[in-house]
């Protein structure tokens, strides 16, 4: 591994970590799309800054771009406050307009400006090590490393100082107001931090992928934990892992580093989305199926409980009567058999004493409108344990 490779990975990792921190709060506050808006609408700020300084890594660019980001948030809020359109429409109106202005400014001056629109969308991490921060004779490493390093330090410091305030205002803005600190101030602080982080990351990974780095790691973490601290930690880890893995994927495919990082993020999210315990797609699917089966079983037992005549309890008749698909009827019947709720003699189904007890209790709960109590009955009767 050459020094440049090491530096690229370090930058990518720091960018991912810096994005994950404000991203976590954006995801929790249901404002994820604001990051998309900011990442696009800072373009005019960058272009104007570049026209003025003719230097792509001048601090003025960062300042102007961050101002643009804050302006976007304020515009969105203002439009929303007029009540003419809903919040999401307000976002969708503001950022394409600002982005268009940026694109037109670049295009109009395309000949004498070294600023490529593709680079704006994509960023180019591979060139970051060439732009070095040199004071006198000393080479202090790539400029990007310093920029993103200070942004990360800033985020971590602010997070440490205002963790409690952030937490309360995110989950309970009313309580935050009652306790005497303004959720609005916290909100604007967070937005400013998100803008600054976006600008810092923008140079390295481009407009669209900043969004990926901000949203994907926290979203993945949110599927795994309920604890805010753990969620932050997991998000930072997912971000850092994807940055490193993405770099090597890009290395082997000889393709865009930022694209590869996002692809890894997508892969990680998809995996967790499928298999996350309790909240993943598979367990949700399984739970829903089980609940359907349970309801069917209850219906079935109650039906048997109601019909004492042998004629009404024939297998074929039951299927017709309750009108289930054949497969489901079979699985309900076998579940009932496994739990010793029913017996089959010939083709007649009858409740066992355990089945009677279960059905009786269930009827009592239903008629006394305590349907939630049926949940605890499942444990009592060892349902699904067989």
């Amino acid at each position, binding site marked *: 591994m050459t020094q440049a490779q090491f530096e690229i990975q370090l930058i990518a990792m720091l960018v991912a970590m810096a994005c994950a921190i404000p991203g976590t709060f954006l995801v929790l506050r249901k404002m994820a799309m604001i990051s998309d808006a900011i990442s696009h609408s800072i373009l005019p700020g960058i272009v104007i800054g570049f026209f003025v300084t003719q230097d792509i890594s001048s601090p003025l660019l960062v300042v102007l771009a961050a101002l643009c980001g804050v302006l976007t948030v304020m515009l969105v809020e203002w439009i929303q406050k007029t009540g003419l359109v809903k919040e999401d429409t307000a976002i969708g109106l503001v950022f394409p307009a600002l*982005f268009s202005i940026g694109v037109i400014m670049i295009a109009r001056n395309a000949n004498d400006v070294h600023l490529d629109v593709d680079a704006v969308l994509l960023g180019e991490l591979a060139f970051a090590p060439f732009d070095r921060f040199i004071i006198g004779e000393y080479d202090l490493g790539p400029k990007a490393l310093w920029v993103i390093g200070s942004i990360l330090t800033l985020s971590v410091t602010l997070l440490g100082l205002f963790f409690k305030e952030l937490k309360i205002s995110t989950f309970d803005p009313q309580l935050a107001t009652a306790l005497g600190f303004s959720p609005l101030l916290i909100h604007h602080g967070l937005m400013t931090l998100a803008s600054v982080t976006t600008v810092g990351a923008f140079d390295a990974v481009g407009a669209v992928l900043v969004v990926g780095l901000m949203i994907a790691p926290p979203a993945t973490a949110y599927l795994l934990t309920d604890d805010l601290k753990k969620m932050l930690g997991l998000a930072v880890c997912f971000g850092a892992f994807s940055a490193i893995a993405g770099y090597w994927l890009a290395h082997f495919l*000889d393709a*865009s580093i930022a694209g590869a990082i996002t692809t890894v993020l*997508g892969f990680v999210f998809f995996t967790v989305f499928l298999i996350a315990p309790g909240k993943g797609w598979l367990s949700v*699917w399984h739970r829903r199926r089980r609940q359907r089966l349970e309801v069917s079983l209850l219906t079935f037992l109650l039906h048997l409980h109601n019909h004492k005549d042998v004629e009404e309890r024939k297998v074929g008749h039951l299927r017709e009567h309750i009108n289930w698909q054949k497969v489901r009827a079979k699985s309900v019947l076998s579940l009932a058999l496994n739990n010793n709720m029913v017996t089959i003699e010939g083709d007649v189904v009858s409740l066992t004493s355990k089945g009677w007890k279960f059905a009786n209790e269930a009827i009592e709960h239903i008629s006394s409108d305590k349907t939630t109590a049926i949940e605890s009955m499942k444990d009592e009767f060892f349902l699904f344990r067989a």
Partner: protein
Amino acid sequence: MNLPEYFSLVFTDYTLRTITLGTALLGAICGMLGSFAVLRKQSLLGDAISHAALPGIALAFILFQSKDSSVLLTGALVSGLAGTFWIRSITQNTRLKSDTALGLVLSLFFGFGMLLLTFIQKQPNANQAGLEKYLFGQAATLVASDVWLMAGVTGVSFCVMSIFWKEFKVLLFDPEYTLTLGFNTKFIDILMTSFMVLAIVLGLQTVGVVLMSAMLLAPAAAARQWTDRLWVMVTLAAVFGALSGILGTAISAGYDNLSTGPVIVLVAAVFVFLSFVFAPRRGLLARRIGFIRNRNDLHLHKTLSFMYEIAKSHEDHSHPHSLRLFNEFRGFSKKSLRKLEVQGWITFDSRQWSLTDEGFHKAANLYNQNVEKP
């Protein structure tokens, strides 16, 4: 080339005519379908879908080694739909909210698409130039067959919309009620979304991935301000969209180095701005005027009721009083007194005012007291 020159050329010049027709059609279909997106609070879905279409374009190129726009757009359609269904699945099966799902799909698909595009670029044999145009769109690449395709899709979606108008409408405003009525809401929903994806995919070539969402939203958001009726809104949105397309093309044709997509988006933004300000009833200006008028009325009524309280204590309620009585009362001004006089509610006689019969009656009834006219 200036605007009059452009309009004289539009009818004779093949390229100009094709591009203008194409962007106008695109604007119309986007406005039409965007209205539903805006009203269903799915405004940002368009943004996500247009980004999600990118890997489809790249994959279609890798698989079929063809740059034919119909092949690439089919790929875009497939991956756009895949993105849409993933968003749906995320919001339905996990606790992630729709904004997170949108942002996720948007960036993850786009990133993957970027990976594929850069991967294609490095392939030695691939003739890949031109794939990037889908990022920002290039209206200049539109040819007659593209316009026919757009016209076809516009026609089909118009027919579908007319057939399912009632269903669309009821689903839009009351989804639960629609379900209880026995409509297959899932089918209507998927139909509506699919046409939105189709419109977005069509627009990719013209305005590109990044700006597509504005094409969908801006005309609809502008149209929304002028009316409360759905069909008027849809029609207006289509007109605004088509006008944005035509004007945007005209302006960008007039200058060098002015890409069509961003100009169209900015023209649409101007429509939105004008609608926000000048729309009757909902518009900011109308609202401001209404506010001022209400305030003036309030001042007038306040003064009148103050006079009424004084006049009530006299048997003859048109008994003249001096203006000095108002010294402690701040609700009146020379202007409001003059207005009251013009209305015929008071009369003036050398710095003395008196309520007229009509004014007394008006004041007595100000707060709905239903006092009989004398």
